[in-house]
């Protein structure tokens, strides 16, 4: 780890000022950033710890859905009675992130701002028609993830909260990388009346919607409705753990499992 200046602002305004420093980085739960620093793969001048900002915390019911502060840890989402009641699939997703240590530290805002292609939360943001509120504006979940480790966030823009719509039915199914336990493929299926959303993480550079799956499920919300459907392997991620065509296959398998779990 290279030396840096550690700052711990207590208000969003102070954080917004602090992040203006030239090579400053925001620190959420640190579950990606800290290992990166330890490996000397990043060299920020300043680390702005968002952990002392009350405005970034808390889980509220809002517009029938949920509003979750950016600095809410995965374990808090997983164990929240409110989340379990309103969107149980979201609690269950959070309970499956990483391991206990990661869940106790990692935050929702950190996860989505980092936009790791194999992170779990991006699938929920897209499938649950979320909107992301920052210190500057509101961004539709559909527009938030723009590429591998890339988002619509501007330099220095800070995620405040994420607002999720409440689906009638939803579930998340993932196939873990056996080594890292990140998602090789994760599929979040959510049904809102006659509309179905199927968001896929892990498989490609960024989360995407499987539109053919959505159409089929909107007509018939059963796993069998996906028989014969698959996403194109072209353009999917490929590494020593999973080739593109294996990932494409797993998208269908996980989508079916999510539909079954959604009931």
């Amino acid at each position, binding site marked *: 780890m290279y030396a840096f200046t550690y700052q711990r602002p207590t208000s969003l305004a102070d954080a917004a000022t602090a992040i203006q420093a030239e090579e400053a980085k925001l620190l959420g739960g640190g579950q990606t950033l800290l290992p990166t620093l330890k490996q*000397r793969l990043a060299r920020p001048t300043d680390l702005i710890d968002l952990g002392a900002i009350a405005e970034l915390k808390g889980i509220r019911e809002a517009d029938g859905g949920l509003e979750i502060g950016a600095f809410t840890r995965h374990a808090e989402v997983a164990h929240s009675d409110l989340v379990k009641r309103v969107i149980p699939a979201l609690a269950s997703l959070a309970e499956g992130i990483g391991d206990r240590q990661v869940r106790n530290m990692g935050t929702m805002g950190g996860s989505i701002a980092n936009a790791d292609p194999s992170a779990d939360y991006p699938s929920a943001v897209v499938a649950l028609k979320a909107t992301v509120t920052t210190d500057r504006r509101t961004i539709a979940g559909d527009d938030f993830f723009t590429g591998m480790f890339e988002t619509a966030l501007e330099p220095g823009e800070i995620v405040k909260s994420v607002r999720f719509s409440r689906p009638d039915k939803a579930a998340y199914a993932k196939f873990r990388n056996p080594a*890292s336990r990140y998602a090789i493929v994760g599929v979040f299926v959510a049904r809102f009346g006659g509309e179905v959303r199927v968001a896929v993480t892990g498989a490609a550079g960024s989360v995407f919607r499987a539109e053919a799956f959505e159409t089929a499920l909107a007509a018939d919300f059963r796993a069998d409705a996906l028989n014969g459907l698959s996403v194109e392997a072209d353009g999917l991620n490929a590494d020593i753990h999973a080739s593109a065509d294996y990932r494409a296959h797993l998208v269908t398998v996980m989508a079916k499992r999510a539909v079954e779990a959604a009931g």
Partner: protein
Amino acid sequence: MANPNGIGASVRRREDQRFLTGRGNYTDDFKRLNMTHAVHVRSPYAHARILGIDFADAAAMPGVVAVLTGADMEADKVGSLPCGWQIHSKDGSPMKEPPHYPLARDRVRYVGDAVAVVIAETREQARDAAEMVVVDYEELPAVGSSTRAIAGGAPLVHDDAPDNVCYDWHLGDKAAVDAAFANAAHVAKIDLVNQRLVPNAMEPRAAMGEYDQSSGEYTLTTTSQNPHVTRLLMGAFVLGIPEHKLRVVAPDVGGGFGSKIFHYGEEAVVTWAARKVGRPVKWTADRSESFLTDAHGRDHVSHAELAMDADGNFLALRVSTLANLGAYLSTFAPSIPTYLYATLLAGQYKTPAIYAEVKAVFTNTAPVDAYRGAGRPEACYLIERLVDVAAGVMGMDKTEMRRRNFVPKEAMPYQTPVALQYDTGDFAKNLDIALPLVDYPGFQQRRAESKARGKLRGIGFATYIEACGIAPSNVAGALGARAGLYECAEVRFHPTGSVTVFTGAHSHGQGHETTFAQIVADRFGIPIENVEIVHGDTNKIPFGMGTYGSRSLAVGGSALVKAMDKVERKAKKIAAHMLEAAETDIEVKDGRFTVAGTDKSLGIGDIALQAYVPHNFPLDELEPGLDEQAFYDPKNFTYPNGCHVCEVEIDPDTGVTTIVSFAAVDDFGNVINPLIVEGQVHGGLVQGIGQALYENCVYDEESGQLVTGSYMDYCMPRADDVPSFTVRYHEDQPCTHNPLGVKGCGEAGTIGAAAAVMNAVVDALSDYGVTHMDMPATPEKVWRTIRDAAPAMAAE
């Protein structure tokens, strides 16, 4: 009454108190006044020429004490890291033994090869400066795999090793094997890869060197499984320090699995540098360095054929193996794919003729050496996979196939056609115990139930035998070992009756501080609390050959018994004197010395006190003191053996294999501490399962870059990957040639498990015509196998 903490008692590990409360003392925990920190500059290339090293900027960085290179070591006449075992090729020529310098001199030969060392006030300063060292490399073509090493026109790792061959060795009677194959009714064949593994000890390697200018004494504190061997190798061959001026301490060590047997360059670097800079120098590997530079394990590519008669009796076995030794010869590397592998190819079977050829090659990868099981898992895996293929060829039940060919108990001692002589073993009994544990008759029904749920179920058997308790020095010497393989123990009774035991075995997870104390408590009828076990310090222990090859109890425990024998003889003399009886009239039981036929007796505590307060000793006949030392050199290897049975269920949609059950039946001879034995088996099984389903050390074949250099890509088994194990052992076949009748248990789990798991996986896929799959059986590999076979199945 039997001692509640004696032999056979499941005493909880005494050392765990400090380990579990964070009070262990590991090498990195040691701090010294004025201590400096070393960070190595390592090659990013698998193969390159060093054209120059510019460290002017680095040397000027804050806190930097020194930047040292191979040229500095050469100027100080630092030698090459020695190899402890010499193999001769078929043609009688000795193996190629190119130099292996602690800091590379002209060329680097694997990613991670050390080029320079930066020594600074803090580790971070040393790291900062190490990044500023500019090495001018001329990249050379690399060899990233053993098959590439022997391909025509492959680049040479060492100029003086033509075709990259270290040795081309063989064992067995080729003519007899050829004749048996000519007359065989059936032949089973297999091609398989035993993939490379990274040892992954929990504690990374670390070393601290100190030099005392006033006495000229060096101290090396290091993560070693055998400090005396390191003292000998480093002192005599690398740095030229005589033993009496070099102390090597291996304090608490957090696991080794073989990887800490060897003498590594970093140990020599910090010891040498400590004198050079006049201050203590400490180096601790980070996890990335562990991946890159710990000696790896396995890495065989083999072809094997088994000849059978019309009834499925084995007639002959023919094996050809290509072994990857990496870029340099690690300490015991040459012996692993030869005398610890080919000699085990008889397995539990009475195959009358066996011939094995092993070609060992250099590649631009990390050195490969002993890793838990060391050669024996490779042998077991090959035999047991081949036996399953043979059962398929014969259409015979896999247990029947094995039973038919077992060496019968009555044939013990049994001389195999590959040098070893098994002393004891009842292989049919192991199988008989195992079958009810797994409800073998009910398997077909369970398979049908799985199928009804869309799942594929398979059962796999593996029988193994290993040569442990390494080893008789005369045999090892005849086979090329450059060291003896005995063990030493000293038993020191103190005046008030407590005991300190000094053992040359080293404990880095095995629980010696408990088991060795149990042996002493049992022998002398004293509380276990009165016994302290000291190990891991060359200034305290008379001598030692360390811990590896499941040898501590069989060899070190036997030395302990010999030393206790001497103590008892001496105590008997003292008792006779105190009780005014003839020595021949003294009877000894559980530490009480009684004059036969009387009620006159003394406890060992009374005798110990008298030994140190010898007011009326007949000093011409009886020396004061009660402190004895013994060396034990075994007569033979020991032969732990067993039968492992694994049941798996495969999800064909994802290719995920789940281990449903695993039963291990082992014969370890007599058992000192069942709890520790069970723990050793559990750990071993998980490591074997790791190889079968998860672990794979991958180098890019052309660039020689390590692809799986972190836990993001190198898959370690986790607790939720394995089932609750069923572990049984029996003590019907104690070792016949050591005093405790023990065989060793440290490696057994690893040796049997991989084969049992893979046999189960292949069995589960047998409906798809699958007869073999290389490890690890990753989800994608299994899924692809099913997918590629499925259309063929549909067409049939």
